């Protein structure tokens, strides 16, 4: 029953992606060469990027609740931070109050988003491997995390293009190997692993929300549409 509900929620969350034909924009040609993709306006690109971010947040939220339900014992549910491990992106200088955030420039907003996206690509891959290790991890959870990591990559590409268009900066190299914050070779015990993964999912959910908010702020700064009135 719950699985059916989750599945339907996931399907509901993903339906916009069907409409937008989620094919990642792979417009990386030789530097200086003609782009192979058909041109897209900046506005549409921004909309699409925001849609991606919204979807990613929704799916991550569902994954987190699913994980919490299945693996986390009830008394430990709200104590995400007491496991000791802070969010991996804590080190990133992102303000946490509205006034501060409002003062961030467009450039800084975009770069923050890019940083966030890039820092989460690898941990999500890692999460998938750990989830496989659990005996009774539901397929839906695995599918969702897989989906999220795929979408994150395409989001990164979109943000890169946006930066290029909006800020007229050159192509940024995607350096994934730079930050490998998670290095766990040994096999931790079950509860510890569960709590760590739980913290990971919660942190990711939060960061997804950040990404979404930044992009929306960016959008409303650019245009004067009715939803930003």
């Amino acid at each position: 029953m719950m699985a059916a509900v989750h599945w339907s929620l996931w399907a509901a969350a993903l339906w916009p992606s069907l409409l937008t034909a989620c094919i990642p924009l792979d417009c990386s040609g030789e530097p200086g060469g003609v782009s192979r993709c058909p041109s897209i306006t900046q506005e549409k690109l921004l909309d699409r990027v925001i849609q991606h971010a919204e979807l990613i947040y929704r799916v991550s939220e569902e994954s987190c609740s699913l994980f919490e339900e299945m693996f986390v014992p009830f008394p430990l549910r709200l104590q995400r931070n007491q496991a000791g491990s802070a969010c991996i992106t804590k080190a990133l200088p992102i303000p946490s109050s509205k006034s501060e955030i409002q003062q961030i420039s467009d450039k800084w907003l975009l770069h923050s988003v890019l940083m966030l996206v890039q820092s989460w690509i690898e941990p999500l891959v890692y999460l998938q491997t750990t989830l496989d290790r659990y005996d009774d991890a539901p397929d839906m959870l695995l599918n969702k995390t897989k989906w999220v990591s795929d979408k994150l990559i395409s989001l990164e590409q979109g943000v890169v293009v946006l930066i290029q268009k909006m800020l007229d900066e050159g192509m940024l190299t995607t350096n994934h190997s730079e930050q490998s914050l998670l290095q766990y070779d040994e096999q931790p015990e079950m509860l510890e692993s569960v709590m760590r993964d739980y913290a990971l999912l919660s942190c990711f959910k939060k960061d997804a929300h950040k990404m979404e908010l930044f992009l929306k702020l960016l959008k409303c700064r650019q245009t004067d549409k009715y939803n930003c009135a």
Partner: protein
Amino acid sequence: MKNMVVVGVLLLSLMPHANGAGFSPPGKPTLTSCRSPEKETFTCWWEPGSDGGLPTTYRLFYLKENIETVYECPDYLTAGENSCFFSKNNTSIWVNYNITVVATNELGSTMSDPVDIDVMYIVMPHPPEKVLVSVLEDKDWPFLRVSWEPPQKADTRSGWITLVYEVRIKLEEKDDWEVHLAGQQRVFNIFSLLSGGTYIVQVRCKPDHGFWSEWSSSTYVKVPNYFHRENSVWILITTFTAFIFLIVSWMIHMNRHSLKHCILPPVPGPKIKGFDKQLLKSGKSGDVFNALVASDFPPTTPPRCEDLLVEYLEVYIPEERELMREESKHLQDGFLKSEGFASDSDSGLGSCNSHTLLMDNSGEAKETDRRTDQERSRPGAEALTYAREDVSPDMSSGRVKTWPSVFSPLTPYSSGPTDQPGAKQHCLSDSVYPPGSTSPCSAQDLGLNYWEFCFSSMQPHLTQTRSDVNVSDIGPERAAARQQSPAPRPTEYVEVQRVSEEDMVLLQPVGPGPGPPARPGEDYSRVKGVRGHNVLLLQTEEEADGRACEELETKGAAHKPTACSHGGLPAPGRAAPAASGYVDTAMFVLPSC
């Protein structure tokens, strides 16, 4: 964490000092909810436990994520009783708050359960403001336009918060709401309204990830009456439908007979007198056929007028005369359809075929009882004159012929019939009563029933026929009466002039001029009568007046003495048959009369 321990120790140390009777440390408070209306500030509310009878103070402490410092609630007042308000400066988003409420009185203090919150997930905006509902018209049909503003505090302009809205509407007197999701727009149209109804409209909103706000205050709107326009359309439709219905029903009424025939064609019933359908249904075929056997046959009492009506009259008029058939009212016993006429499709048709009757005369056993009865009744059948001109039985194969088409005077009848009371005519003939004539029953009363053709050249259009059924009843007095009967007939053919009723036919003589001329080559004689199975009484020419009788023996049957009596008086214009005294036995139609 350390600070909490310190606080706890302090509180515990205070406890021994409060030993009052009936007082106790306060009960455990509970944090009920924390809400942020605009993602910039938030408020937490708690529910106090029992106060233990002593004045109790409540304090809220919180911890921020990964920061060791314990903070106390900055504002206890703004949000009201038992609440804590976190201002903008004290609010960080994406940061976990660990909040605890402590109740303290003289005897001790009690801590509530801690609650972890993140401001991002506790957003519940205020209801939308300035809800306006106006009635507009779209091609004479009214609709409602609902417009509103986002709550004042929510910063949608910069995109900090994205709100989606929901509108609900109901009739004032009803209970169920109609809910519409309006998305991110600020305007919504509602159609399909009840004319003259009063509606209540409410709006609420929700951030993209958060809780629904409360419903806005009710806005009342009255829809004007547009029903009269609706009404006129319905009146037109109703009138038109009624009109069409009237036309259709009138047409059906006019054609009801043909419709009835079309839908329920009348089932022809059996036309055999004495044939009882019920007996057949009951399944005993023996009974059915037994019922056909007339119990009162041969009739002992003089048959009534109606009994003499025969069902079928078949008039064969050769030489381009049409064959007419009629139905009579009813079929007498003993009349049957000749078996030789398989091709004859009429049921119950009395037909006389010279063939068959000839064969019948031989006394062969037939399948039906009726036929055998008939045969039995033949002996002593009355004398019937029969003459036909230019008719041979071969011609008539397969066709029913009148038997007799013409009757000659029946003078010798008296002799024959007396021997056979109850003999009946083989063929059916119909009674035809010319208008103004005396009722044939008058003759019948005398027991005289015979066929008569009264024709005269003077009255070509009118003939009189009477059914000649029961000649057997003719007794001496009848014979006398018969003499008053119309003149004997020559061999004449009649043509049916018209059918006056269902069972009456008016005949007229065939030939123009004064009666039928004697045809050359005619070598038939008139049969005065038939006696017995095989005796024919013939009339010679010189005894056209019906004086002489001749006996003819046929087929080796026994003969009987015949008594000739004077037959009918010659009718005016009666032509004597050109009889040469010869009778063609092949033409004999031996009646069973």
